[in-house]
């Protein structure tokens, strides 16, 4: 910044030194964190939040945090190659430890065993969290991962499809003011709910996916908002702002097998776990199929993909529809579990929350989506009930927003990146390829 005339040479030299500027940025980051974790202010005393968090001995801790961060960053720069070598080896470790397909299979089975066995020893609160906060959101994150991670599209109205799934559940089971031709058992309505969400995805996607990527983001944001408004206002169809109650729990009567899901969380947890495992396997296959490779091609270079015979629009709509149906499935399950739907469950910020889950874990990475969703959905609950932290639920989006920015600046590939995505982003940053599907509009220039 040549514009700033520093009063003394020393200050000027400090300003020009990257180290000093980075130190200042790190300390500033520490102070921001102090404010974020500090007390609340109010309209009448707007500075009280700041003074309460900065004019206090606790600020020292955050300044120290900033300095340590700076030391780490400087070290990383000085010894970058060595550190990268170590981190590469660390991230490659699971792959090297599990080279054999069979060993890996056993590893996954053990994980599955833990996922099945461990929840039984949890108390009711955590079992509920496991379904409402973690299970449903893992499923949602897996679906959005197809749109954002695989196809490189930004969908900010993703929760709308969840709403469509939930209202479908209500519709087919007769809970809505409008009644279907025939009532269905909630369990058998699952395919219809998924289908409805998928159709909505196609109807919204087919025209809008021709648009530039950032326009798509805005249109989907608007769509999410519209769905919420519609749900609120169409009293006669959706039950309005109060929502509807009385969506029955799932039950199966099939070939002599009879099972009822009830109020307990565990049966729903196992149902969700089943869905998640199936979806994981299906998406894993999808990623490594003709369809998955077509998405990579589109992300990398839309023009080249088209010239290689890939119908770009079709594949984008496909990704959108697959994401939407997964979201619809999650909405269906949750609606049946809690027994009611209301528009307040589909606020636009939930779409952002799911986006954070995917980004945090690593776009395009299945383990990333699962672990990201599980960790980020578990932490707030844990911090909320833990007496030491006293986390306020209303501050959640403050932290999520910060996570998004920090991730984009320092680790855009996410915490558990897919190898392919990591390579793409690395190359894109050297000016090769685009790593998203944002650039061009499909269709000829004439």
């Amino acid at each position: 910044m040549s514009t700033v005339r520093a009063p003394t040479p020393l200050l000027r030299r400090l300003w020009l030194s990257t180290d000093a500027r980075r130190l200042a940025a790190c300390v500033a980051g520490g102070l921001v964190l102090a404010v974020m974790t500090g007390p609340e202010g109010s309209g009448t005393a707007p500075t009280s939040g700041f003074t309460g968090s900065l004019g206090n001995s606790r600020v020292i801790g955050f300044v120290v945090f900033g300095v340590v961060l700076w030391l780490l960053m400087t070290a990383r720069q000085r010894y970058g190659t060595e550190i990268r070598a170590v981190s590469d080896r660390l991230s490659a470790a699971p792959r090297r430890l599990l080279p054999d397909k069979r060993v890996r299979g056993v590893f996954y089975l053990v994980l599955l065993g833990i996922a099945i066995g461990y929840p039984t020893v949890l108390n009711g609160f955590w079992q509920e969290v496991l379904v409402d906060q973690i299970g449903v959101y893992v499923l949602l994150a897996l679906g959005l991962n197809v749109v954002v991670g695989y196809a490189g599209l930004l969908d900010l109205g993703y929760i709308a499809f969840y709403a469509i799934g939930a209202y479908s559940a209500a519709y087919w089971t007769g809970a809505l003011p409008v009644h279907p031709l025939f009532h269905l058992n909630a369990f058998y309505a699952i395919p219809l709910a998924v289908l409805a969400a998928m159709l909505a995805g196609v109807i919204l996607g087919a025209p809008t996916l021709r648009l530039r990527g950032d326009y798509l983001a805005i249109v989907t944001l608007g769509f999410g908002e519209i769905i919420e408004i519609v749900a609120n206002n169409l009293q006669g169809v959706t039950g309005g702002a109060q929502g509807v109650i009385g969506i029955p729990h799932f039950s199966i009567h099939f070939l002599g097998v009879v099972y009822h899901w009830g109020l307990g969380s565990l049966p729903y947890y196992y149902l969700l776990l089943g869905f998640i495992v199936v979806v994981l396997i299906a998406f894993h296959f999808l990623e490594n199929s003709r369809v998955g490779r077509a998405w990579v091609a589109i992300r990398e270079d839309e023009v080249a993909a088209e010239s290689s015979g890939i119908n770009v629009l079709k594949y984008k709509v496909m990704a959108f529809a697959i994401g939407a149906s997964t979201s619809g499935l999650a909405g269906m399950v949750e609606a049946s579990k809690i027994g009611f739907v209301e528009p307040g469950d589909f606020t636009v910020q939930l779409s952002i929350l799911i986006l954070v889950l995917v980004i945090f874990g690593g776009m395009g990475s299945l383990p990333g989506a699962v672990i990201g969703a599980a960790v980020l959905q578990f932490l707030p609950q844990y911090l909320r009930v833990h007496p030491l932290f006293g986390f306020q639920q209303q501050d959640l989006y403050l932290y999520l927003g910060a996570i998004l920015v920090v991730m984009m600046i320092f680790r855009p590939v996410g915490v558990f990146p897919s190898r392919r995505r990591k390579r793409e982003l690395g190359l894109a940053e050297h000016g090769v390829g685009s790593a998203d599907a944002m650039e061009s509009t499909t269709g000829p220039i004439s």
Partner: protein
Amino acid sequence: MVPTATASDPIVQVEAITLRFGGLTSLSDVSLTQQRGEILAVIGPNGAGKTSLFNCLTGVYHPQEGNITFHDDHGKSVEIVGPKPRFAGLGGKSHVRNHGRKPHQVNRAGIARTFQTSRLFNALTAFENVKIGVESRMHTGPIGAMLRLPRTRHEDRESDARASELLEFVGLRERANDIASSLPYGDRRRLEIARALGTSPQLLLLDEPAAGTNPAEKNELVRLIRKVNDERGVSVLLIEHDMGLVMTLADRIVVLNFGQVIASGVPAEVQQNPAVIEAYLGAPDPEDAYDTSGPAEDGPEK
């Protein structure tokens, strides 16, 4: 495979196309015909409209006037660009507007292309690049892929085999698992050709295949293009600056200047054509050099 002069079996016919960008006319009344099995070169000075022509052929640009028709090996004709009558509303005269196919449809019809600066899928391996080309001809949908149905697996094995075979064909077998961005320049060119061949084209369009290659790489490319034409029976249409390459490779040459065809014929004829010499070396009299009543240069050459 030099076609006999009598039997006319065109693979692609460009009829009087005109392409404008705002006020600039980049191609004006350009016609050309390529015979099946032929290697046709389109040459011309910078800004002559070569790349524009190429982009019209591949569906990137849709010319305002004229037709482009592709005749595939099975006797089917596909209109790449052609007039499409449009209903102009009540009382209005129905007007005709040119309608073109999208790039992926052009590719499906049987025309594959490469790019002037190679556009590979850089984060993928050489093998995956070719496989994506091959797979664009397969049928697996998302459901099949998610369930990994037997047919999906069968198609996958088939694509693997085809991709390996193509890598072998262009001489990149050892490089199969290398990341595309790590390949040397000449290899990238060949990989792009392999990817294009993966889509089973009957006509291959090469946009300056030798640009930026060294002499050794160029020789190999010439050999490869020959091989594509001879062994696979793929017709080749190429744009090139390198005269040496064009003269050794092409069966026939079409020369563009200022968006118009100024000459065409076998290399020996074209070489002697005064209009061509003038276009390349400039007219002896500077007055004449600008005395072309033809349209302006083409804008989007790159």
